[in-house]
């Protein structure tokens, strides 16, 4: 927990002299105000409790606010004092129950003083720190209504609106009647001199436009929103990144807050003043509607559906979008008229064509020259025309075909659980050669440098000459090799089922290895100096390809079989925890994640700003790569473990419902 008071403390040295110059108890100002003690020390001077000796027979206590005027230039000093006197005069004419009375002001030496009503009580910051747990929504709404009321009074002041400028919990007193009193008007502002040097701490409650020198009623509304956010979350905005309220949704910290109140506060906190409430009165009315609706619910309007959460139904991306003005306007309206969830209903697509095989399609398709190749659990490799979905040929092996086919020139290569790699003519589906390993082949081949690299359950990575089908070498792992190896610049990368990951050169000599905690079935991806893969330990790894240093790793909640895809700075990978993850490859941070209805063992594919992936819930999802928003989904009749492939804006994917589908991207 942060020390919330630390940052409000001076980092520099300037205050020391001021504190030393505080008036001592017993001192008298103007032969009238007998100082009894210090109520607080602010940036501009102290606030004292004093007794007004003009009333000798009763004890009249006042608050005396001291403002040090240390400006050196005499004409500047004079101007500051004039401004102070003008503002004091304005304040003295105000008449509102939440505004303390101004009794007197005067200048003395290097200080100005303002004498005002003494309010017994505690400020809201103190109250907040003193409250165990969260302050109730009802309570905050009551305070907010009173604050809106006093802001409306100030903003309606003629001839000029009065801008409070410094709404924050510590400037709001709570008197003994639980009534709000505003203290510390921005009267001392002209006294502030610019500070130099790097320093820490921001106002936290101030609106962005205030830093351009703009002070307006809309700025007070923002600061009120920031104050309410602080009161409801206990997150001090002075120690959070400035203007980060949208990144810290209220209800994420405090789920007890209603979505309607969150929407009202979000509206007040919009960056652009024109997107906030038009005035404090409008905000007050929204709060009154909310209170009325809440009271109505309490008296039992049975059968009324609970209003929808603002953050949307489960299954939408968890990364929250910045608040959108119009959405918020619409969202707080349901406080009185509940309406069904407004999340956009993603369109479900119908396939361009589908092709039925004789058994489940668990493996993934490959595309080459207008033909889709995919292995089925009936042991057949199917060649299907991409435009129409017509069978060209099928080729039978003696085992299941769980992997990707690989196309190289006129040959299709695929590993089979019959322990062999099959090389098949693309033209007619005739076998060209087979290569035997000592165990089922569940790995998918990779072609580079005239060789085919593929793993086998026999615990080796095999390098096979594509032309002669002769083995060049094999490299031993400590377990079955089921991933698809990747080759980059004379280096071959692959993992095995015992959790080791290897880098070998093109002669099969091991350069380095790395150990994950569980099996590596996910196929590695080389990208810009790093290799990326998932593992059954639930981790996504980023390894330096030259050394074996892990640059970062990211934990998901279930094993990973899915293989990564990368587009721009984002890596996409599925996990058995049902999510598709988008990770920033520069820092291993989650950019977004999308929850499907089942395990995501399918490997994502990216095309033109959209990422496609299958899920065991039977659907193919098309998601916006930037934010994980659902573009469309397609429901098949069986779990999808197959990885989509995209060609000419058509997505091809197999399903365990025996069908190969072609979907418009």
């Amino acid at each position, binding site marked *: *927990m*942060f*020390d919330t008071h*630390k*940052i409000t403390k001076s*980092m*520099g*040295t300037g205050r020391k002299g001021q504190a030393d110059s505080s008036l001592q108890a017993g001192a008298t100002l103007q032969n009238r105000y007998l100082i009894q003690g210090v109520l607080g020390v602010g940036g501009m001077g102290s606030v004292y409790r004093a007794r007004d000796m003009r009333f000798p027979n009763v004890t009249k206590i006042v608050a005396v606010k001291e403002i040090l005027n240390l400006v050196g230039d005499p004409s500047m000093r004079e101007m500051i004092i004039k401004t102070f006197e003008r503002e004091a005069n304005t304040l003295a004419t105000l008449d509102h129950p939440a505004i303390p009375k101004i009794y007197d002001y005067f200048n003395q030496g290097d200080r100005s003083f303002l004498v005002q009503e003494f309010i017994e009580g505690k400020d809201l910051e103190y109250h907040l720190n003193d409250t165990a747990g969260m302050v109730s929504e009802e309570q905050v709404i009551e305070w907010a209504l009173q604050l809106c009321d006093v802001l409306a009074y100030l903003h309606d002041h003629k001839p000029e609106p009065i801008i409070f400028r410094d709404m924050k919990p510590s400037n709001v007193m709570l008197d003994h009647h639980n009534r709000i009193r505003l203290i510390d008007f921005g009267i001392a502002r002209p006294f502030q001199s*610019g*500070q*130099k*040097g*790097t*320093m*820490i*701490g*921001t106002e936290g409650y101030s609106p*962005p*436009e205030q*830093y*351009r020198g703009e002070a307006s009623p809309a700025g007070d509304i923002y600061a009120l929103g920031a104050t309410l956010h602080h009161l409801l979350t206990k997150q001090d905005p002075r*120690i*959070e*990144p*400035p*203007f*980060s309220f949208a990144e810290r949704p209220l209800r994420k910290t405090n789920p007890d807050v209603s979505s309607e109140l969150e929407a009202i506060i979000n509206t007040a906190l919009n*960056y652009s003043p024109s997107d906030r409430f038009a005035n404090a009165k409008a905000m007050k009315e929204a709060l009154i509607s909310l209170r009325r609706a809440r009271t109505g619910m309490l008296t039992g309007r049975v059968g009324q559906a609970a209003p929808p959460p603002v953050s949307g139904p489960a299954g939408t991306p968890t990364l929250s979008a910045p608040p959108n003005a119009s959405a918020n306007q619409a969202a707080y309206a349901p406080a009185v008229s509940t309406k069904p969830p407004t999340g956009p209903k993603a369109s479900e697509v119908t396939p361009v064509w589908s092709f039925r095989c004789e058994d489940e399609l668990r493996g993934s398709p490959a595309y080459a020259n207008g033909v889709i190749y995919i292995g089925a659990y009936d042991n057949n490799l199917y060649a299907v025309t991409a435009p129409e979905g017509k069978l060209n040929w099928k080729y039978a092996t003696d085992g299941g075909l769980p992997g990707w086919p690989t196309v190289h020139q006129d040959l299709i290569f695929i590993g089979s659980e019959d322990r062999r790699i099959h090389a098949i003519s693309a033209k007619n589906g005739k076998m060209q050669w087979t290569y035997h390993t000592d165990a089922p082949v569940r790995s998918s081949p990779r072609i580079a440098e005239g060789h085919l690299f593929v793993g086998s359950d026999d615990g080796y990575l095999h390098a096979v000459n594509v032309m002669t089908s002769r083995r060049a070498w094999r490299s031993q792992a400590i377990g079955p090799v089921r991933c698809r190896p990747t080759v980059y610049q004379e280096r071959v990368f692959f993992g095995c089922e015992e959790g*080791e*990951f290897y880098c070998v050169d093109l002669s099969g000599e091991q350069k*380095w*290895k*790395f*150990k994950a905690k569980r099996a590596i079935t996910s196929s590695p991806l080389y990208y*810009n*100096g*790093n290799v990326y893969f998932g593992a059954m330990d639930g981790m996504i790894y*980023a390894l*330096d390809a*030259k*050394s*074996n*240093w*892990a*640059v*970062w*790793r990211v934990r998901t909640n279930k094993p990973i079989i899915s293989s990564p895809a990368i587009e721009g700075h984002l890596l996409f990978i599925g996990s058995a925890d049902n999510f598709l993850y988008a990770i920033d490859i*520069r*820092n*291993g941070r989650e950019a977004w994640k999308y929850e499907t209805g089942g395990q995501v063992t399918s490997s994502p594919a990216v095309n033109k700003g959209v990422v496609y992936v299958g899920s065991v819930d039977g659907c193919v999802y098309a998601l916006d790569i930037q934010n994980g928003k659902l573009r469309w989904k397609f429901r098949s009749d069986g779990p999808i473990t197959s990885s989509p492939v995209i060609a000419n804006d058509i997505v091809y994917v197999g399903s365990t419902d025996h069908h190969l589908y072609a979907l418009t991207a």
Partner: protein
Amino acid sequence: MPNFLDTLKQLFGGGKPPTGPMPKRDPDATVPLPDLPTAPRILDVHKITVDETPRRLTIGVAQDVGRVRGHNEDVLLVFTGELAGLEAMPHFGMFVVADGMGGHSLGERASGVAARTVAREAINSVLPWLLSDAQADVERPTLKEVMEHAMEVANRTVNNSVPEGGTTLTCAIIIGEQLVLSHVGDSRAYIISQDSFEQVTRDHSLVQRLQELGQLSPAEAAVHPQRNVLYRAVGQGEGLEVDVDSRRLAPGTMLLLCSDGLWGLVPDDKLIDIIRKAPSLQVACENMVAAANAAGGPDNITAVLVRLPQ
């Protein structure tokens, strides 16, 4: 002033030694153009040709108190390691720039403690592995975890030993071609390659946030009275959030770390021009510091420049 990108291209212009007639000189240059810093330099010394291109990380550093401040609250730290031969180790480098704050001697103490602590923790976590021949059998932390841990220890140490002080902290670790940066505050790291001059750290400053929200233009931010206000710094309590980023550095790429006393005073195109015209990284750093002083030198100035071998 030559075009910025042209300047970059010239800077990385060629790996080839000059042949034939001398290359045409920049007519605007006020000093004779030195040899391109990244090109192998062929010296005719007693008719023996010497290739001066180093096979290691090359470094330049410079620091100055500036022309206004009475004392220096900036810190720079450089550690490099090379092991060539059969059992070669990847190039290793650890670089830190920290800019302290807090008045009296608090700022310089905070930045000094932070830099020493973060370097000690990171080097302790990395160097033994680089120098051992141990393979994958023992689990090592990831480089991101190394840097996060080192920053956390540095933050804790500053909190305890200089409770009233604070500091920015920008650290770079280079292993081979892998760069990992950890960063808090408004000191900066830039990656300078053939066709780009990229700021890779994000200032944790009020004006940066305002720019991201479209509330300030870069020009307004540069003169904003609160441009020195940070919202994140080392030594401000527990739970420090740190930015950690990794990049692959192509051969010949340069990395610049600097405090706001440099980047706040000297614009990017001027920095790149200085780097191009300098005969060495060391001279480049000294000239950058001189440029910041020439612009008034209101703050302490620190620059560290690193170049990967070609």
